[in-house]
């Protein structure tokens, strides 16, 4: 545990004396980058955080969105990268546990999980395979046991994550607006710790996460126990219904130190606690260890004295431990005692508000070179290239992953994993679509346009189900912020996200910043991740089976944007080129148009065009439906482009619409009236994917052969190397 020298001086000046050892530990945990956001906080203010649906209340650990009829949806996103890189099963599992408790702490029931996973090159690197396999098991083990469906996510492999792992977990909650925890406390209220015992696991975890991963510090990794978490969920929801909870906070990074200081600070009260009252796993734990342990499955509750017995009875029913560890005081001080002995007395505003930093930034020198397109050899056999792309771990079907997750429990999952976005039914008759998206390959070349692209892609995905985006969560993952070039990429991404959020009026309702994501070979590529929630008022578009003679329409323009594409990296082994850029005006028009097409129920299905470009999006439709197609490249709306660009450019704002022949005129009418770029580019039938340009055959691939590769290549890679 440590503080920077100037931070120690600042602390001593603020409290007017040398801190005690316990005080020092508390402050070091809370002032870590992980807990304090000291590098990013000043800048995060640029994000638009309010909107007509947003309910903001002090002390919430999750974003709260009003979805009508007295119902709210809550959402939060977190990562557990450092622990997962050391111990992937436990790291990933506790990542799920932490974000679930954030959802719970606002008083809503967690109803869904999405996860974004990133590892090194699993084709060549057995260690990356091991990390991947065990992180998936960890998420499955935890989420399945809780009975919360994991409904979607994404998996990506890139050399920049060699010997490392990004495990991002987003969780969604649902509840009644009038049952939200209000987060209020007055003098004399009791501070209660419920859940698992405090042990020596996860000591210094937030500091561990605030440093580059140089050594495998296993004691900093927490141990998961989903069974206790399940009992906590049920006990807390029962306690909520019995009005036993005045305020609540999850114990996450920084353990009790952070939970107590942040709760007291946000409620404007003081808290006095006695470490002797805390139930521990081991008998000889030091007070300093107790204060910073990050043992999982613990919640801090503030309750009215009169409600204590009810709370205890509920905890007894579920056999979870419940200790009164202190009380609320009016003095805005955080006081830690051991029996009568005072170990720490600190003003909560000082603990909870680390001195913020204004880090320098500088445009990375490598960018100029990267943004020039490398020379590409013109391929001779596009059928082979298409087949190779289909089997690429980044494009291959992710069934091996999501079939290990219970995605049906809770009986809300209307549109299941494997589609553009997943859709849940809500109790008010509406539907909720959710998706998370990242694209480090794009963000590396252009952090601003790349981040905007992630945002647009996540929106496109929910739009494909008929949902209007209502809220966003972001997770910004970068290397060491002390490096001005890395800090510049962070700022650029943040600015891009802010621009898009403001222009599309999609509020940021939660997020997280994770720095120091460094591997032995250097920093990861900038990896901002965007999660989007969308609402469907009436019915989602359930993809219908494609049949012979159905017509394929593309909306949106294909541009010369191969930079950071799967094609350039996986086929040519090159990094660089022009990153796809989002034209805000066209993006908005296309989204509105697609939503109108879906509302009028004239499309069989709508599919987003993203990684791997148009060729992959078309192939996916064919492989899912076991049907061939014939498309003509010259019909694609674009400037004059080489064939590989038309096929594999990852330009944004593009959608594929499958429509029955008889509805073609109706679709044309809407698309023409809306004045969007579109064209009919082919039709379905037969058993082959046939791509032509000016009647000349470019690619010819059997659907069954492609499907076999697409469905099985990831599983084979994981199981057999």
């Amino acid at each position, binding site marked *: 545990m440590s503080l920077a020298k100037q931070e120690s001086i600042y602390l001593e000046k603020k409290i007017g004396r040398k801190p005690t050892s316990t005080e020092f530990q508390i402050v070091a945990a809370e002032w870590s980058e992980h807990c304090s956001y000291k590098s990013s906080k000043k800048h995060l203010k640029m994000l638009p955080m309010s909107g007509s649906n947003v309910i903001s209340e002090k002390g919430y650990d999750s974003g709260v969105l009003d979805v009508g009829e007295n119902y709210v949806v809550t959402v939060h996103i977190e990562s557990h990268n450092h622990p997962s890189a050391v111990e992937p099963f436990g790291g990933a599992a506790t990542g799920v546990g932490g974000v679930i408790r954030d959802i719970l702490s606002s008083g809503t029931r967690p109803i869904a999980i999405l996860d974004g996973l990133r590892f090194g090159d699993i084709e060549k690197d057995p260690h990356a395979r091991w990390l991947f396999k065990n992180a998936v098991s960890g998420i499955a083990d935890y989420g*399945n046991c*809780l*009975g919360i469906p994991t409904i979607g996510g994404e998996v990506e492999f890139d050399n920049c994550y060699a010997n490392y792992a990004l495990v991002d977990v987003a969780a969604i909650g649902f509840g009644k607006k009038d049952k939200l925890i209000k987060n209020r406390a007055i003098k004399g209220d009791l501070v209660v710790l419920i859940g698992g015992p405090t042990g020596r696991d996860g000591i210094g975890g937030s500091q561990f996460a605030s440093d580059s991963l140089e050594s495998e510090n296993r004691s900093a990794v927490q141990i998961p126990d989903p*069974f206790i978490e*399940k009992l906590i969920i049920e006990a807390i929801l029962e306690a909520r219904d019995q009005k036993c909870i005045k305020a609540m906070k999850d114990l996450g990074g920084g353990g009790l130190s952070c939970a107590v200081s942040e709760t007291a600070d946000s409620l404007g009260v003081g808290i006095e606690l006695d470490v002797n009252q805390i139930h521990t796993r081991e008998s000889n734990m030091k007070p300093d260890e107790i204060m910073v342990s990050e043992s999982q499955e613990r919640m801090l509750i503030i309750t009215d004295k009169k409600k204590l017995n009810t709370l205890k009875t509920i905890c007894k029913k579920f056999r979870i431990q419940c200790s009164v560890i202190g009380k609320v005081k009016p003095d805005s001080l955080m006081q830690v005692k051991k029996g009568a002995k005072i170990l720490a007395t600190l003003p909560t505003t000082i603990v909870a508000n680390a001195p913020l930093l204004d880090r320098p930034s500088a445009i990375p020198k490598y960018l100029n070179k990267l943004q020039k397109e490398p020379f590409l050899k013109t391929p001779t056999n596009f059928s082979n290239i298409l087949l190779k792309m289909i089997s690429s771990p980044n494009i291959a079907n992710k069934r091996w992953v999501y079939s*290990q997750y219970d*995605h049906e*429990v809770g*009986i809300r999952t209307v549109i299941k994993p494997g589609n553009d976005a997943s859709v849940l039914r809500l109790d008010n008759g509406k539907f909720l679509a959710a998706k998370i998206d990242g694209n480090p390959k794009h963000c590396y070349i252009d952090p601003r346009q790349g981040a905007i692209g992630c945002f647009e892609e996540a929106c496109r995905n929910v739009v494909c189900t008929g949902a209007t985006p209502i809220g966003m969560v972001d997770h910004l993952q970068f290397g060491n912020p002390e490096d001005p070039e890395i800090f510049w990429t962070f700022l650029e991404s943040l600015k891009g996200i802010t621009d898009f959020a403001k222009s599309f009026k999609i509020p940021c309702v939660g997020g997280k910043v994770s720095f120091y994501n460094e591997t032995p070979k250097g920093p990861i590529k900038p990896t901002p991740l965007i999660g989007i929630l969308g609402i469907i008022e009436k019915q989602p578009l359930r993809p219908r089976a494609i049949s012979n003679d159905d017509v394929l329409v593309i909306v949106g323009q294909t541009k010369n944007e191969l930079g950071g594409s799967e094609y350039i990296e996986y086929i040519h082994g090159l990094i660089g080129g022009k990153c796809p850029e989002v034209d805000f005006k066209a993006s908005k028009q296309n989204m509105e148009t697609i939503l109108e097409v879906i509302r009028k129920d004239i499309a069989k299905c709508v599919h987003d065009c993203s990684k791997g470009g148009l060729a992959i999006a078309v192939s996916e439709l064919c492989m899912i439906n076991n049907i061939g197609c014939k498309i003509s490249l010259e019909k694609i709306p674009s400037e004059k482009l080489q064939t590989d660009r038309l096929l594999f450019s990852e330009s944004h704002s593009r959608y594929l619409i499958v429509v029955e022949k008889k509805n073609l005129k109706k679709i044309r009418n809407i698309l023409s009236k809306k004045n969007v770029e579109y064209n009919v580019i082919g039709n379905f039938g037969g058993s082959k994917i046939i791509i032509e340009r000016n009647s000349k055959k470019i690619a010819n691939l059997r659907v069954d052969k492609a499907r076999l590769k697409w469905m099985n290549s990831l599983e084979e890679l994981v199981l057999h190397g």
Partner: protein
Amino acid sequence: MKVGVVVFPGSNCDRDMYHVLSDVFKIDTQFFWHEKKLPKNLDALILPGGFSYGDRLRAGAIAAHSPVISDIKKFASHGMPILGVCNGFQILVEAELLPGVLLKNNSLNFMCKWTNLIVENNKTPFTNKLKMHQKIPIPIANGEGRYYADEKTINLLKKNHQIVFRYAEVVNGSTLRIAGICNKEGNVVGMMPHPERATEPEINPIDSKPASLIFESLLNAIGVTQ
């Protein structure tokens, strides 16, 4: 007409089952915490899916020693229709109300997917509205779902028509592709797939009618016994 849903610590399909029974089939349904005595006026009992006691030791092994089990055994011997789904099936097996064991799937992974069941016995309180060999599209979601029994037991199951459901395809390596069985008397049924996830068209992408017949069979059975 009253159906009880037994809740163990770690049950997580209890609320889904309650929703289907009470909202979809309009049955008077009540939860019973595993430490509560069961009232005498129940017409049927359901043990829902989940991870009772976090699947520690073996799935269902600890819950099989819950206080409520002695009541369940009594009701079972009186002929009350009792259905165990997924973890509920595992608990019934561990409590020796049904023969055999449920082992780890041969993939060694948790598996969540849609599959088809084939009805092999349509005389039980949960299958009387189904046709023999009728197909039921239904999801499975389990880690320890591979049914296994020794040859002698399997022969008895066959002889007494105790195999209720089989998978239409090889799913997890279970003996004879068994997905669900009943006791000799036919009133206690256990199945690994989740009928409560398949009865509503909104969440069943294939066909919700066959799975609905499982619950309609129960209604039929309770009606007959009343």
